């Protein structure tokens, strides 16, 4: 163990937010990004050399890349000081690869996940659950019936050890190479935890698998990596939830998600993120779809100070399909810059993007999208629809869709609308006995229904509850 490790037991009583826990760390890296920190993370995880080499190469790329600066209307990242972020904290859990029974977790971690309702959801509706606390996955379970069919659902660190060939081939190579952008490079250097999902040929995992990520410590960065490999003809639905309490300094979340959708396979990736309002949420998520494969992204972005997230699908095989359904809600001090990217690189591919956003109390939402249809992708079609709802005059709502069309035999349509909540609608609901707040909540619930419809009921309920919390008392 290197001398950089601090065995700190901080007792931070400031800025208490709901059920924030005392930081409970066994291993904690120093601040900033140096080769020593990277070596320490890799060492602490007992990683093979090839992974350490990948980390160091990514670190070098990170240092060589400039921060993005010339995007029109891009969020302000000036308050983000990566050198001040603590990239790695390992909580004090006995088994490094996590436990498979909730009761084995330290009380306060157990309590946290209890409050978030994760064990309950697992019991009732899910095939498997992984839970990450700070940088490490602390709980991991997969129902036996799926294990028997060869489905792998484990944390990413374990996958590096147990399934090196699969990881070597797919981890940040063709889908999200570290050279993709500065934060992908950062992620490649300091990634920790996350989920690994492997579904063998023709296996359908009928119930969703779920991972839950929580950042608890102040000033930390979370960099979980998710790798999903769905072989030919398989089907899986992966759900991710994220949250963090509120702290005074800024947290950074920079996750990486790579999805490989095999021939005729079908992957749905759903996420509801509700990071605390001091978090910079800068992710890279991408899927590659083989012939007749289907990728579905469903995302809800509520929390964070700044989110820059554009889940991307590369339609590589003929006849592959992509669906994006996204919803963003920005309140006071929030800049949610999110959208979708689709590359149509093969004939007869199709994509639909449905984006909804709500801006209130001075928040800003932006839909930033890119649809690229390559020369030769004939018979492809895409439809993009963005709708924005604004509550007040302090808020901002932008849309910046980009379309690059290099092929003539295609069908491309984009539509966007911005509107306020209709006074008539509110009046109608009030005349039926609802108060102003409830009327507005109901209109918002109706507005986001296309998203909630796509989610399993627990998530739909959680999403609705989160939005309700956000709306409470804030309506004029």
């Amino acid at each position, binding site marked *: 163990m290197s001398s950089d490790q601090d065995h700190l037991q901080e007792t931070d009583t400031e800025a208490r937010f709901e059920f924030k826990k005392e930081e409970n760390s066994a291993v904690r890296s120093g601040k900033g990004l140096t080769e020593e920190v990277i070596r320490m993370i890799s060492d602490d995880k007992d990683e093979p050399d090839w992974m350490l080499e990948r980390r160091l190469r990514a670190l070098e790329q990170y240092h060589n890349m400039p921060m*993005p600066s*010339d*995007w*029109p*209307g891009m969020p302000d990242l000036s308050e983000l000081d990566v050198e001040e972020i603590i990239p790695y904290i390992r909580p004090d859990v006995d088994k490094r690869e996590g436990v498979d029974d909730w009761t084995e977790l330290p009380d306060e971690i157990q309590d946290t996940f209890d409050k978030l309702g994760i064990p309950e959801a697992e019991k009732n509706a899910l095939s498997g659950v992984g839970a990450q606390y700070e940088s490490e996955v602390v709980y991991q379970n997969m129902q036996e019936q799926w294990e028997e069919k060869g489905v792998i659902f484990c944390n990413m660190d374990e996958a590096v050890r147990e399934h090196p060939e699969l990881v070597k081939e797919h981890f940040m190579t063709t889908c999200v190479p570290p050279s993709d*952008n500065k934060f992908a490079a950062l992620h490649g250097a300091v990634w920790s935890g996350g989920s690994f999902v492997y579904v063998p040929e023709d296996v359908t995992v009928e119930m969703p698998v779920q991972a839950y990520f929580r950042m608890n410590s102040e000033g930390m960065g979370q960099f979980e990596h998710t790798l999903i490999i769905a072989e030919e003809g398989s089907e899986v639905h992966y759900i991710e939830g994220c949250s963090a309490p509120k702290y005074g300094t800024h947290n950074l979340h920079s996750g990486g998600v790579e999805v490989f959708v095999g021939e005729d396979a079908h992957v749905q990736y759903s996420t509801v993120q509700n990071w605390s309002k001091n978090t910079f949420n800068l992710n890279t998520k991408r899927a590659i779809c083989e012939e007749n494969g289907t990728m579905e992204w469903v995302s809800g972005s509520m929390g964070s100070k700044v989110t820059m997230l554009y889940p991307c699908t590369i339609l590589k095989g003929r006849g592959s399909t992509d669906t994006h359904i996204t919803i963003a809600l920005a309140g006071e001090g929030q800049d949610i810059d999110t959208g979708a990217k689709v590359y149509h690189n093969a004939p007869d591919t199709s994509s639909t993007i449905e984006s909804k956003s709500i*801006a209130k109390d001075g928040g800003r939402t932006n839909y930033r999208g*890119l649809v690229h249809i390559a*020369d030769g992708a*004939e018979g492809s079609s895409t439809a993009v629809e963005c709708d*924005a709802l*604004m*509550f*007040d*005059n302090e*808020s*901002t*709502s*932008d*849309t*910046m*869709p*980009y*379309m*690059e*069309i*290099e*092929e*003539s*035999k*295609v*069908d*491309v*349509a*984009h*539509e*966007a*609308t*911005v*509107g*306020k909540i209709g006074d008539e609608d509110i009046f109608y609901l009030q005349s039926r006995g609802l108060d102003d707040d409830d009327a507005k909540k109901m209109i918002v619930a109706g507005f986001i229904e296309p998203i909630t419809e796509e989610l399993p009921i627990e998530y739909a309920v959680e999403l609705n509850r989160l939005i309700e919390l956000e709306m409470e008392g804030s309506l004029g």
Partner: protein
Amino acid sequence: MSAGTQVHANLTEEQVREISGDLDEPEWLLETRLEALEALEELDMPDVIRTPGRDWTNLHDLDFESLVDPLNAAEDKDQVGPEEAEVLSWSDAVQEHEDLLKEHFGSIVDPKENYLTALSTALFSTGTVIYVPEGVDAEDVAIRTEQNSRSLFNYTLVVTEESSSVTILERQSTGAEQDEQYYSGVVEVAAGENSYVQYGSLQNLSEEAYNFTVKRGVTDTYATIDWIEGNLGTQLTKTEVSTELRGDSSETQIVGAFYGHNDQHFDLDAKVWHRAEHTTADLITRGVIDDISRSVYEGVQDVGADAWDTSSYQRENTLMLSDESEADASPQLIINNHDTEASHSATVGQIDEEDLFYMTSRGVDPRSARNMLVEGFFVPVLEEIDVDELRDDLSELIGARLRQRE
């Protein structure tokens, strides 16, 4: 490459002094020109749409060294209008309306907005000033410019007083064919209270030419500015048509039509800034691209925080006639006031096979059928053009280009 390096050695203060002196300009105008010349060192090229790793239009390859020839500008120009309005050449305007120029010149399009506007301000040698007094309805103002030199820098100012109206039709074409040419135009429109400006433009320069234009208007209360923008010529066009709705209840419409073939590149911006209450904007652009041509469309509807109760609409449709052509579209909404109805839509597609089949099954030969469908595609745009002459010319040029197609 930074723009600054493109200030070429053969562009000098003396040349600018000579242009200004030939036009008998007052000292303040010369100063404005010289400031613009000096600013070239620091200014960047106009913004183009960028996505990571890609500029959709590359302006840096333009060879200004050889294209710009400030002292040899030559043109054949008509500037005519009805008696009630004043339609003046630049040199006449300098003599007769200095006060008007002082008030408006450079107030709508900042000469130092970017490298190309500054270049235009420093070097323009020809222009038109249209002044419409209070209550006057001026029909049929025509400005025809035939470029006969390697480079030509043109400036147009339109000022309408309260409750007046004017219809302007501008055309640019190339005279004796030159190898490569550069045409640069800046148009400023100040629409007074309750006045109406219709500004039609038909750009049909030679396909060897490069073109950079900015047309921008500001509206006073209840004023309307309608733009019609037809683009057919040049090998590279970068153009912006925009209105700042500064007065309450003012309106604007921007109608665009383009047809690119061979290796033409059109970068077309349509922008509106809602800066006052009850303002309305309608942007509609349709274009066809063929062969290896390329269109880049950027439409911006910006609703400011003080722009209450506004309506803003934008439509852009591109028809692709070949596999090698490329269409890029970015219709953006920037909304800072919630009391607005804003929407935009964009489509890219090809000729509908079923329509084609229907027509050929009725005995129309495939080529005529296709041409009819393309002409039909332009109808919604042509319908928005109030000026008969412009509409007829545009549809004739479109028809001629279609018939050229193998």
